[in-house]
């Protein structure tokens, strides 16, 4: 007879000895925790039950258990939810029905140990040609973390689902392999925990803590740029985990090579596994995303409208969602169904005109920021490699985006000759053709220019 059966049979007999009211009050949510060496541990829901059992029913329960198992000599009662089934029912991400407009603290959804948000899963992750590769790598990792593609480095622009993918990997591993220890961190959190550890002289205990993790996920790793001490400590943690075949997953808005002020040894380690980029979703995928999101939010929009949004918002999944949110808010406020004309009016601000507006200043500023340089440095005469390349890119962008004339561009850069400008633009455009990574970099910079 196992524990559960013993307890069932105790309950079955006890109900003849006491009133139904007492039975319901005191025996609800009780169970046998263990039975060993003649000692039976019984879990009770609260201290009132505990006192009552110990003082009133102990003799009766002991007698019944003894008649079932002669070896039992003693019973102990423990309060607590040691095996309450309800605990395991994590709040389902969709079940919460509040007014959609009222925002909630996201931090509360987050699991305290893993830092993962259960909202992100593979079931609501839409796969298209633009993210097939990272998705396939992610799926492989969830099957056997640590043994394939280690580290996985995912990069791509804003709002394309990097965080979603990273968190979904974590959540899936929790589900499939519950004994793995997972930690999700933004690089900001990583930095602050290292800084705190240094302050409290507890860096060793922090390192030891990280070294026990089976899957370490660090989001937005590009923010480690320039933080030398953090990089050093992270390097050690990285090595320790890597040697033990623990899975490491990283994300960034650009490939490792393009992250400025990142130590060479870290760069080369990041490149040592699998690098996968998320590019922009194509038209069909955008349609699929919009349809799924509309279904999630419970708004009915015609195909015509969905197509309109998909055609006009091309570069950002988050913006697609934002557009739908606007429609849904409008529908709720006015109660009218939405037609194409209303959509066009509502989305006027989000959808940029085909002729994008930017300026000389914006381009210089963005390029400088992207490569972690000062604006003056780009405009100066320096022939250092790390400045020459950004300067050439800036000239290229001025030419392609603003259609500035070559002499104008030359003048802006401390009166350089127009031939210098021509040479730069040609060099960059050839490189874009040849080198896919480089093209991606340019694309990211362009995206930033138009996002500010």
């Amino acid at each position: 007879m196992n524990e559960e059966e013993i307890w069932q049979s105790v309950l079955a007999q006890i109900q003849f000895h006491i009133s139904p009211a007492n039975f319901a009050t005191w025996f609800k949510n009780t169970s046998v925790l263990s039975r060993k060496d003649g000692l039976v541990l019984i879990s009770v829901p609260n201290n009132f039950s505990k006192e009552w059992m110990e003082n009133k029913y102990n003799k009766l329960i002991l007698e019944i258990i003894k008649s079932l198992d002669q070896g039992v000599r003693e019973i102990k009662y423990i309060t607590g939810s040691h095996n309450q089934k309800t605990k395991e029912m994590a709040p389902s991400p969709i079940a919460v029905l509040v007014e959609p407009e009222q925002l909630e603290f996201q931090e509360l959804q987050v699991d305290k140990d893993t830092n993962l948000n259960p909202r992100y899963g593979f079931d609501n992750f839409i796969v298209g040609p633009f993210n097939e590769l990272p998705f396939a790598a992610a799926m492989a990792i969830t099957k056997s973390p640590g043994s394939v593609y280690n580290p996985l480095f995912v990069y791509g622009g804003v709002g394309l689902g990097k965080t979603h993918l990273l968190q979904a990997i974590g959540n899936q591993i929790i589900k499939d392999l519950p004994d793995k220890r997972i930690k999700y961190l933004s690089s900001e959190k990583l930095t602050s925990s290292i800084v705190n550890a240094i302050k409290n002289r507890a860096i060793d205990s922090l390192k030891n803590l990280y070294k026990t993790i089976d899957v370490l996920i660090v989001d937005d790793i590009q923010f480690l740029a320039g933080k030398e001490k953090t990089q050093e400590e992270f390097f050690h943690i990285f090595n320790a985990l890597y040697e033990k075949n623990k899975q490491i997953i990283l994300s960034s808005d650009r490939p490792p090579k393009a992250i400025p002020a990142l130590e060479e040894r870290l760069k080369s380690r990041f490149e040592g596994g699998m690098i996968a980029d998320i590019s922009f979703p194509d038209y069909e995928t955008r349609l699929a995303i919009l349809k799924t999101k509309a279904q999630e939010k419970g708004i009915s929009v015609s195909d015509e409208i969905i197509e309109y949004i998909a055609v006009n918002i091309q570069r950002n999944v988050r913006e697609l969602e934002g557009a739908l949110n606007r429609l849904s808010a409008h529908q709720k406020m006015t109660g009218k169904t939405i037609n194409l004309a209303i959509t066009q009016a509502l989305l006027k601000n989000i959808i940029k005109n085909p002729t994008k507006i930017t300026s000389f200043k914006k381009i210089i500023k963005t390029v400088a920021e992207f490569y972690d340089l000062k604006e003056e440095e780009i405009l100066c005469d320096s022939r250092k490699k790390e400045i020459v390349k950004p300067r050439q890119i800036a000239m290229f962008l001025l030419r392609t985006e603003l259609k500035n004339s070559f002499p104008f561009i030359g003048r802006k850069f401390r009166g350089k000759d127009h031939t210098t400008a021509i040479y730069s633009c040609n060099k960059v455009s050839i490189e874009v053709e040849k080198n896919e990574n480089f093209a991606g970099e340019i694309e990211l910079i362009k995206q930033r220019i138009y996002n500010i």
Partner: protein
Amino acid sequence: MKVILLKDNFKKGLSIVEKIVGKNLNLPILNNVLIAAEKNFLGLSTTDLEIAIRYWILVKTEEEGKITIPAKLLSSLVNFISDEKITLEIKNQILQIQHKENINQINGLSSEEFPIIPKIERKNSIEVNSIPFCQGLAQVIDFCAQTQIRPEISGIYFNIQKDKISLAATDSFRLAEKIILFGKQIIENQESSFILPQKAARELINIFSAGDQKIKIFFSNNQVMFEYPLTEVDHPQVQVISRLIDGQYPNYIEIIPTKYETEIVVQKEEFLNQIKAASLFSGKTNEIQIKTNIKKEGIEILSQNTDIGENKSFMPCKIEGKEAVISFNYRFLIDGLINMKSQEINLLLSGEEGPAVLKPIGDATYTYVVMPIKK
């Protein structure tokens, strides 16, 4: 049992213990108060199996004994007694109440059936003054989540540190934190924390707000006891014992932003009035909009409803940082503001979809965080 006692003491004691007595159909004995005479004290106890309240009255005991009596009935009866001295006597499961020539007899139930009130280890304890403690509790109590889906945020989080107690409550839309400072060490061991059910906290405020003595708090893994002393002799007067909520409280400190985009200083009363005026036009969603105007040095408060009309008001204030347009549920703003006593308050914004913080100026111990409504 036979005791003689003062009516006022009896009345006060009953009024305190009867609060948690409800209509319990499952276990009718929970509707009763346990009356027990022991040595020089008459003890009154009630419980709903989550909270228990015990109260002691100094009495002249002629014979010890105990019985349970329907609490509401006894309390109503005592309210009508005008004499000073009462004699209580038990005869065969009947409580006889005698004052001068009047005699009442109430049928009781055996004390054997009454739940045993759990004992608590006296290992971990701290002492707090009842007035600041109850005021602090009252400032956060309304923000516990009302849902049982996530039991850990349905109560008040107590975090006891070296020289202070932090109280926090959140319902996932807003969060209130109150820090009670002691200026001296209150606990020897490391930090301790527990989650107190909201209902127990309400009882504490009801019972202890009036007194100005020290409350002793004893806590263990799953229980807590608040004890208030008798002034005349060294004996507890009231004990409130409650279960604690099982679970880990979220790391709420992370919710409170440390950097802000826009920092506003406003007169509290005027701000509150403007919000109340705007609320009349806010419609079903309770939405009002706050719009900064740095050039005019003030904020606009806007609300509109197609059926009623609209509100547009301006109030001058100090602003630093970026311009902001942000919408709130007006109820959430009012709930936070009414817990602040200062003349001026800080309204700190972090973008139109980021958490906003309200703080009374000159009182760093209270922080209220509220999430806006999505545009």
